């Protein structure tokens, strides 16, 4: 019962803040709503028993990425609101209709897969450690060591690329 209440409350907050993110006129308010949205997603991760991911979500998303967005909003001088310019060729209703089609499709897949007989639960490989953070770290440094290193290379390349792109002259 408590889990259901928590799930519905957190879901309502996630969807409400996400709607506010894409409907607010002011970009700074939009970024702040994005922070609240990320915090509630982290709460959902805690509800699912993924405490390490919740901490990463708060540190990386709410702490790092959002600060990047705020810096860009400050650097970009918004004298003229971007929505003031209207393009007659822009098809807003078609966009919303296509999004609704995506939702219908995903809902149909969910309804179909929930009618299938439940798959037998595949227990994870026997791990010498217990606890969520220890298990994620153990997997990252044993079975998924090479993807982990590739991800670190990707982050390095992205860092260099962002510096090259944002620098005025090299």
């Amino acid at each position, binding site marked *: 019962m408590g889990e259901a209440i928590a799930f519905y409350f957190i879901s309502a907050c996630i969807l409400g803040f996400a709607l506010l993110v894409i409907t607010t006129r002011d970009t700074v308010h939009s970024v702040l709503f994005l922070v609240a949205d990320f915090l509630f997603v982290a709460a959902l991760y805690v509800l699912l028993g993924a405490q390490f991911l919740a901490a990463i979500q708060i540190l990386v998303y709410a702490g790092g990425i959002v600060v990047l967005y705020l810096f860009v909003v400050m650097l970009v001088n918004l004298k003229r609101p971007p929505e003031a*310019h209207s393009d007659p060729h822009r098809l807003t209703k078609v966009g919303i209709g296509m999004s609704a089609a995506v939702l219908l499709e995903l809902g149909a897949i969910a309804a179909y897969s929930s009618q299938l007989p439940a798959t037998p639960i595949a227990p994870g490989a026997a791990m010498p450690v217990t606890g969520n953070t220890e298990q994620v770290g153990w997997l990252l440094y044993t079975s998924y060591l090479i993807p982990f290193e590739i991800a670190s290379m990707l982050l390095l390349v992205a860092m260099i690329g962002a510096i090259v792109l944002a620098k005025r002259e090299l």
Partner: protein
Amino acid sequence: MRIRDWGSGIGVNRQSIRNPQSAIRNTRIMITPTHYMLLSAALFMIGVIGVLVRRNIIIIFMSIELILNAVNINLIAYSAQLQNVIGQVFAVFVIAVAAAEAAVGLGIILALYRNKETINIDEMNLMRW
């Protein structure tokens, strides 16, 4: 890891034959992976609407972050259901890619703004056919 008992549809049916009242109460209270999938689909749709409808390129990038969050919710919900941590490992990779995407994308926004003095995507039509 926490042991979760989400039950299957078959079990609920068998229980409802014996005791309909408790089955109804159970199905109301229980949060299945389908709930998480529907939440994830709704969040994904909000992100898609943001990408398709808004003209402010910063808000479009934030909508992409919402979409990646929806994917992560799915991965972690099924990781909890299957009692397998690999889904959380993939969510870590998704977060790393999202961070890289945000850094490069915001660099592109700054470079574009320096050249065109706008963040409206309708005015960024240099390569439009």
